[in-house]
């Protein structure tokens, strides 16, 4: 255990993976409504009506877990400092191998941005999802706008998810350990989140 440092609580991890499962249920069930190409995805759910029902249930689960996850980390994700602006200016060091890592807190500036984007997208998808829950209940103009925004933020979210999954797995080896086992290697913490590492080791 000496080589590891605790990063995520069991609560964080459970909420994250419930959210992740809900996300993939939402994507597979929602794609059938999004484009003809994916209509057969409804077969996974036993048919279109059941797929739409699964989408609604998963939507509620995703909304709740996303809010929980956001507030669990809000104190680490909602403030940006000068190191963060340096991080953004250098694109997080992702454009070159030679850049030295910029000191970062528990979450780097990009992760914080993703957290803020996620909660904003969750709220917008949640509100528009509520409006189109029964697409004849709220008036045509509002429903039409909600259908469009629901599709737009789905696109943003799926693109965000691609980047998130890449950077949290093969793009940054060792990162996914935190979400799987709750702890990361000390060398990971020193490299990716040196300010946070200093904080947690000083406490001891």
């Amino acid at each position, binding site marked *: 255990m000496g080589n590891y440092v605790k990063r995520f609580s069991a609560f964080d991890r459970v909420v994250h993976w419930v959210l992740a499962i809900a996300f993939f249920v939402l994507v597979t069930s929602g794609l059938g409504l999004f484009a003809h190409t994916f209509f057969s995805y409804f077969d996974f759910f036993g048919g279109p009506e059941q797929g*739409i029902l699964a989408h609604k249930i998963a939507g509620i689960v995703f909304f709740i877990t996303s809010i929980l996850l956001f507030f669990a980390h809000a104190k680490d994700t909602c403030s940006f400092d000068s190191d963060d602006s340096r991080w953004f200016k250098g694109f997080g060091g*992702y454009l070159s*191998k030679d850049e030295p890592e910029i000191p970062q807190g528990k979450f780097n500036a990009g992760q914080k941005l993703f957290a803020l984007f996620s909660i904003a997208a969750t709220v917008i998808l949640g509100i528009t999802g509520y409006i189109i829950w029964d*697409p004849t209940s709220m008036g045509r103009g509002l429903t039409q*706008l909600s*259908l469009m925004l629901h599709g737009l933020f789905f696109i943003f979210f799926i693109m965000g998810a691609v*980047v998130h999954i890449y950077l949290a797995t093969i793009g940054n080896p060792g990162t996914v350990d935190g979400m799987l086992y709750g702890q990361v290697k000390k060398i990971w913490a020193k*490299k990716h989140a040196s300010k946070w590492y200093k904080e947690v080791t000083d406490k001891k």
Partner: protein
Amino acid sequence: MKRKAFMIDTSLCIACRSCQVACKQWNKLPAEATVNSGSYENPPQLTAYLHNKIEFIETEENGEFKWLFLNKRCLHCSEAGCMKVCPSVGALYRTEDGLVAFNKDKCIGCNYCVNGCPFDVPRYDAQNKIAKCHGCFDRVENGLQPACVKACPTGTLTFGDRDQLIAKAKSGGKQIYGETALSGLGAMYLLDNKPQDYALADNPTIPTSIFLWKDVIKPLGILGFWGAIGVAMLHYVTVGPKQLEENGEEKGGGNHG
């Protein structure tokens, strides 16, 4: 096959509502309870069991009361908003005669067509399946007139070859509503007054949000998704991942595993 269409000459309409009754009879649509809204117009809205109806629009002309009668129905647009948004291929489809018909067995009950229609026509029945005017395609395919046209005693409703109907209306010097709108409506009006007086848009279009959703966001979104995957893969093989140096960290020494 040449496109067939309705031509609806509102100046001839006497609001007898034979069209409403004939439609219900042919399509076996049940009667519905309704309310007195202080107008002869009845029922007040198209429903899943009322696929065409006469609107009684009350206006004044030279200080005198005047009714405008409009046969509301699906206009069988060439560029049909309902078909554009329908996720289930074949639930809404175009017949060989150019009518927009539907197949309830394929309808998934999503209600998107209700919002995609420029004219607020599609309705959902008690089983949550689409219902609207399908132009009596079953009659038309067998050489008959649609039920409403057959029943119309004044010649307000006519049905036939679309080009011929347009040519005939033009030779009569009449303004046609819907000749070119939405790439040509399959039910056109000859109006006494301006379209606004009938609560019809001058230039009806697919609702803007629906256009953006289906024609901009969807294609760009699919591009964006694969683009994101492409960028990630490109990054992995060019710059490469941020590897952890197990031995000999750049600075600060560290633990050795």
